[in-house]
């Protein structure tokens, strides 16, 4: 099930320098947001949510509609490394996803 436009989930974890905050609170969560865009098809966004996150179809569809109507949706809150992996996968599929520290 390796996504073909993004790195496979099993890809080696990138090594990076932890920032100060991460050393203090290594598990502090990051929100992963997906932003609306005028090109990606609604059915494609549902497909990507199901494939990347394993969401059931109704959940994926609800989040897609939230992106469509609200302009963005929170799709995950995870420790930094996992959030980065999600952003990478979503970018690989062409969705505009960003992460930010959970407030």
């Amino acid at each position, binding site marked *: *099930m*390796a*996504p*073909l*436009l*993004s*790195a496979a989930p099993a*890809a080696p974890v*990138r090594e*990076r320098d932890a*920032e100060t905050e991460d050393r203090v609170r290594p598990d502090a969560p990051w929100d992963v*947001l997906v932003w609306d*865009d*005028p*090109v*990606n*098809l*609604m*059915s*494609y966004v*549902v*497909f990507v949510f*199901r*494939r990347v996150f394993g969401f059931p*179809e109704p959940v994926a*569809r609800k989040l*897609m*509609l939230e992106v*469509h*109507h609200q302009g963005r949706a929170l799709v995950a809150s995870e420790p930094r490394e996992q959030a*980065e992996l999600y*952003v*990478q996968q979503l*970018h*690989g*599929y*062409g969705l*505009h*996803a*960003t*992460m*930010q*520290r959970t407030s």
Partner: protein
Amino acid sequence: MSRSFRRHGQSIRMQLAAGEVALLRSMRDGLRAVLEDGAPDDPVIARLFPTAVSDDPEADTELRRLLRDELLTARLAALDDLHELFEQGQESRGGLRVDLDAEQAVLVLGVFNDLRLAIGARVGVEHIEREQLPTDEATTQRLAVMDHLGWLQEQLLAVLDPPSVQVHLDGDGQERR
């Protein structure tokens, strides 16, 4: 119009017209050139390698630098794989027929999406009111290609992932297609 994608045993059969194949080859070459050039101020590059961290420019720069090589490698590999799939296809009904397994089908879906994103970025689709026809012919043509690729994607999604079809059967009526 006959279907471009249909279930065929364990495979998904892609049947493209000769004109579609020529168009896809040409667009694939065009996207490859843009990716290899990688001009940071090119809107296509900006769209395919977008902001990654929304509230921290420094962290964004760092993460985008990390992601960029992997995403670029994956995108170029996908274009090569599409080329291979076309090479393996058989001439059929004046066009090309290729039987895809599930992973190859997702690859095709993703490349079509990258091509649509690239066209959208090139014409500045976010600034275009789709109800009004654009005045210049090049933009009109590019939008038509984008829509056609979207139609191919919809057909592929319908056989790749049947539940997603529901989005179009009971959606909110505000879809673009």
